[in-house]
């Protein structure tokens, strides 16, 4: 019985961790690699959820497909956002505090616009697989959690390969380390950063679609994820995509085990304790460069 609970908790934790990774991925790029404290990222995820909801409700498309279809628009929005951020703050060297305030502001504006346009009622999506499960012996897996995990894994792998195998991807990794060296390689740091923020915001479209598959969404629900996703990015090591995925899975499994055996109230606390202990031992995070 205990073994059954334990294994089920581990599996549930891995699936939950996959979802956390999807939400944290965009932040890992902006915060981890570009040094942009994009506190509005969870709000973009909620916009992703609403976009998915609208497509699902009006066209009846699968929520994940809807999220993927929305990525080009989100990418474009991310590029524009960076242009604005660059002109207003980064160019004048005011990005540290003013930039943080800027993204805080964006978060509230996004929330209020969503409330004004769509109201505050909870939104949910329909899909055939929501509510169904698959079983392997005594392990029961809700597809509502499995589908987000699979999509999150594909997306994380995709971003990882892009960043490590392509010229532009490597340039993104380089831009936060040495702007001058990057310019000497013939790449424009501003363009590279806007590409990176575009990708980061595009991941929010998919993460949003995963969130609304798992549960109901209303405009302010993103706030609940801010602490957790920042913790994941820092725990994984700033800028490491693999680290983000590992940290997300770790937090997911720990939360799930604590919720099963000790009490769900302690789950987030234990996640943060792990973060603190890890930072005490390895200040750069699990996979961060020293």
């Amino acid at each position, binding site marked *: 019985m205990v073994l059954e609970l334990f294994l089920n908790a581990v599996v549930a934790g891995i699936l939950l961790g996959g979802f956390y990774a999807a939400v944290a991925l965009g932040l890992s790029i902006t915060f981890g690699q570009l040094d942009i404290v994009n506190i509005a990222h969870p709000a973009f995820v909620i916009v992703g959820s609403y976009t998915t909801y609208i497509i699902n409700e009006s066209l009846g498309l699968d929520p994940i497909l809807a999220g993927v279809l929305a990525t080009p628009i989100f990418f474009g929005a991310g590029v524009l956002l960076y242009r604005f951020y660059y002109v207003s703050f980064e160019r004048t060297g005011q990005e540290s505090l003013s930039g943080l305030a800027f993204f805080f502001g964006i978060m509230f504006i996004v929330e209020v616009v969503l409330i004004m346009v769509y109201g505050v009622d909870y939104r949910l999506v329909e899909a055939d697989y929501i509510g169904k499960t698959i079983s392997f012996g005594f392990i029961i897996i809700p597809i509502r959690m499995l589908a987000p995990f699979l999509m999150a894994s594909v997306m994380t792998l995709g971003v990882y390969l892009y960043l490590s195998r392509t010229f532009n991807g490597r340039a993104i990794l380089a831009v936060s380390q040495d702007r001058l060296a990057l310019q000497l390689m013939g790449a424009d740091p501003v363009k590279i950063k806007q590409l990176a923020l575009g990708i980061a915001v595009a991941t929010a479209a998919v993460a949003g679609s995963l969130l609304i598959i798992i549960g109901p969404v209303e405009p302010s629900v993103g706030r609940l994820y801010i602490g957790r996703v920042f913790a994941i990015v820092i725990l994984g090591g700033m800028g490491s995509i693999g680290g983000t995925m590992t940290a997300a899975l770790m937090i997911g499994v720990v939360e799930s085990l604590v919720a099963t055996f000790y009490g769900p*109230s302690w789950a987030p606390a234990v996640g943060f304790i792990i973060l603190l202990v890890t930072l005490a031992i390895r200040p750069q995070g699990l996979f961060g460069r020293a």
Partner: protein
Amino acid sequence: MTRGNKVGIRKWVLSGLLMMSIAILAPLSSTARAAEPIKIGFSMALTGGLAGAGKAALIAMEIWREDINKAGGLLGRQVEFVYYDDATSPAKVPGIYTKLLNVDKVDLVVSSYGTNEIAPAMPIIMRKKLVFLSLFGLAVNDKFNYDRYFQIMPAGPVPKEDWSRGFFTLAAEQSPKPKTIALLSADAEFARNGVAGARKNAKKMGLNIVYDKTYPPGTADFSPIVRAIKATNPDMVFIGSYPPGSVGLVKSANELGLKPKMFGGSMVGLQFASIQKNLGPLLNGIINYDFWVPEPTLKFAGVEEFLKKYQEKAKGKGVDPLGHYLPPFAYAYLQILGQAVTAVGSLDQGKIAEHLHATTYKTVVGPVKFGANGEWAKTRTLMVQFRDVKPNDMSQFEGPGKRIVLYPKEWKSGEIVYPYK
């Protein structure tokens, strides 16, 4: 005549003129005051977690204002609202009420929506000795014992325990009687209060509590919790949850095959049309609290007209489109305030409070009589059971037959299906 005398006469003439002008102008200014609107002040959750309810409440309150102003206003004066968004943040509430009373100088105050937003206003209201009609606070006055506090949610005189009394009364009537129970609550004031009462009721009934935990806001996956509950194999599961948790728990329980004999209790969200539509048949069998449902036993005068107006106004505003849960009560608490002010014939807070203690009011949610602590003198927290719910159809909830009233007996509209399947 001396110079001193002249000054004295002038003084007398001037003061006489002043007195005359006061005498002439005084009635004028009181007429002007009579024409001034009566200002009702409140804070309301228009953004943040409870905004869904707060916005719906505001629509209902505005319908009341339109109705009363059309009928000539209160004490012959038009009614005006002064309100601010508390963003579902309890910390903002004291500042809002201070401003309403000291800057806006409102004549009457009512509360925001929900326990967490009502409690922080209490010290300010109490200092000014104002009548405070409140909207859906659970056991707020337990700690304050304020004699001018009146609460419209029909929880009953012992709110914490009355809240779940129906659930346990029904359980006690079943054969064989359930023996074990799992309690789960969201980590927030309202849910914890509800489950605290359930714990007492469970102990009174001699149930063995096999699981008793809370979960934090922001929980995305409920399957570990549902599995842990399932492992204790309880006869009953009583849950105090908010909408995201309610949906997650119902889905998880269904996916993982958690089938106790009774399931539900104090789950917020299962009363909202959009969530009902999405959960569809997963709701069948769940026994949960509610306050008003369109069953034949609860057709009070005015409620259908009110809902028609509400549903029209709610269109496109992103609030609950049917509005069965909260809006009728948001209308009723102002209806009661209006009736009390009219009966007293003034804004004298003491007299209004006396009237509120002594009278049974006729409202769209039925007859309302407050007890000594400002809660309903007798509980009317309904326990309803979802029945024959079909997938993907919101309109089915507009009429009777989907949420059967099982408790209290005088409002009962059908028999329980037990055990829950």
